[in-house]
């Protein structure tokens, strides 16, 4: 496992490279029209297969394995997949950029969404939102943002109640925790301000 596998670490250099490859992939797939299919294959490869078979990843990333061997392995291992995916993987290997594959896959998915006018969002709630309520939430967000939203749902009891929606770099925070924090901050600020302005009101004679 390399260092950029965690969700937190963000590698601007690989991100840049990954974006270039993802654009290239989608550009090539625009002609055949099976973008959705290939990107799903790529996602399952990155998300499921590679973590299960780390040797495969090591082999394809390794600069010491000659390219023909890698191509053979790709043909054998992904024989069931589409031609487009195999060709793309060979290109990535030929340029020695297999380490960027995870970023390529996530960027390609994002670009695909953008092409269709969709945005991705994350909803955090204190308790799981029942399936029945979800369409209403999606519709409300779509109206607010003016575009279709694809939502991921996560549960974080720490926010106590309410909702927190993150779309891109923007956070719509209607959580109970942050409102309580806001109340605490404004109330203490205001109290301190009033004490400073009219000190007499707050003083009592100790005797």
């Amino acid at each position: 496992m390399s260092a950029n596998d965690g969700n937190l670490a963000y590698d601007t250099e690989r991100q840049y490279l990954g974006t270039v490859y993802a654009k290239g992939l989608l550009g090539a797939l625009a002609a055949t029209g099976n973008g959705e299919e290939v990107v799903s294959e790529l996602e399952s490869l990155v998300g499921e297969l590679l973590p299960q078979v780390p040797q495969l990843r090591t082999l394809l990333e390794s600069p010491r394995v000659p390219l023909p061997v890698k191509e053979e392995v790709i043909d054998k291992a992904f024989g069931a997949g589409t031609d487009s995916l195999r060709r793309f993987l060979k290109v990535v290997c030929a340029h020695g950029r297999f380490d960027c594959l995870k970023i390529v896959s996530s960027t390609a998915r994002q670009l695909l969404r953008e092409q269709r006018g969709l945005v991705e969002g994350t909803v955090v709630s204190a308790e799981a939102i029942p399936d029945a309520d979800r369409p209403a939430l999606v519709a409300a967000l779509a109206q607010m943002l003016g575009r279709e939203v694809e939502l991921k749902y996560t549960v974080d009891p720490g926010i106590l109640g309410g909702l927190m929606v993150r779309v891109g770099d923007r956070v719509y925070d209607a959580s109970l925790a942050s409102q309580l924090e806001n109340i605490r901050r404004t109330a203490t600020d205001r109290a301190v301000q009033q004490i400073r302005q009219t000190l007499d009101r707050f003083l009592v004679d100790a005797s």
Partner: protein
Amino acid sequence: MKFNADEIASVIQHEIEQYGRQIDVREVGTVLEVGDGIARIHGLTGVAAGEMVEFPGGIIGLAFNLEENSVGVIILGDYLAINEGDEVRAMGQLLSVPVGEGVLGRILDPLGNPLDGKGPVSFTERRNVETIAPGVAGRQPVHEPMQTGLKAIDAMTPIGRGQRELVIGDRKTGKTAIAIDAIINQKNTGVKCFYVAIGQKDSSVANVIRELEQRGAMDYTTVIVSGASAPAPLQYIAPYSGTSMAEYFMYKGEHCLIVYDDLSKQAAAYRELSLLMRRPPGREAFPGDVFYCHSRLLERSAKLSAELGGGSITSLPVIETLEGEVSAYIPTNVISITDGQIYLQPDLFFKGVRPAMNAGISVSRVGGAAQVKAMRNVAGSLRLDLAAFRELEAFAQLGTDLDPATQARLDRGYRMVELLKQRQFTPMHVVDQVMMIFAGTKGYLDDVPVDKVGAWEEAFLSFVHSKKQDFWNLLDSSKDDKDALKKADHATTKGLIEALTEFKASHKI
């Protein structure tokens, strides 16, 4: 007396009742890496250059570098409390500091937080740290004097209100002393003073503050401190925030004096930030825009036009040179920006000539127009005469016999040099200065031994103040008369000659 808890609780209860539910919309990013006073952030796609961002725990940062995939932020606070992966939110506003009467007499950090333990700063207004300097139409030529109280400076390189006069010299040549004397001399003039200490030892700053307090100068002075241990971002913004506090008074039509002590350290802090942000280094590894860094700061010192209230900011930037190297990058930059410089030399300083100003290469490009007329009449040629004397003195050291005329010029020169010496923290009133320089240039000191000039000066001034106060008042009121001390039949000239003759008759050397 003690606090009434119920009353406080009622205020808080009122606030809670008034609290409106609202969705908090914020633009966020994630810390990728942090260290050395800077952080790189992923996200914050809509952030503007110079916008404030907030880290967890309320630490403030400034968006400094906007790159394709990340944002470089300078951290104005304790960067050790920030971790990788922390959420950063854009605050949608530019950096500002509290301004107003409340900052006077206070010791603040560059963000306006008090460092003197005298409680919070009371303010009603904030002002952006980075503001645009007044334009051409908003200014007028410098015409009022800003007295420093130092004979050498007020006579030879006069400073006007709204001028920028550089104080430059090696370490330990009395740069700060000049600035402090100028601040002390502003007592009872209504001029507000700001002393911005950048990258200095906290012990030196504490000494400066103690001197200002002892001489009652803290009543109208604000000290902005970002010491040597402060992170580079704070040292970088300190002069801008000090200027913002001064601008509040300038735009109200009042006058300010601001000392940046010193800008070489600020340039070094800016270099540190720029290199950490991977901006390309230029000469002496300074970034390409280090000139702009100083020019936009010093352009904010101005004399406003009458329509804008006629307020002013006079600035005394300080630059420390290494081994007298004035042709280094930062000194040449700041020399070219300012309206003149006071050049201090270590050899003069160690010879006992203090302030150790080199009269030959110190200039004031605009201050002459602002000089008190009487001073202009007596000291007009003083600077050139002193420079000529220095040359003659060097020549005389060859040991050749000198003709009496040359010897007389040398003797006069020695006495003038002696006369321009002044102890620290003893600023002089301009009328006293004018009388002494008149006495020196007109030859009234020629028969006084060189080592007695100081004592003679003291005795003469106390003589005038005790016996000739009427004349002193006359000179004070007509010091801006263009003929004062110039025409032989002018009342001031007659009065001064009379006082000098009378004193010489009674005073025994």
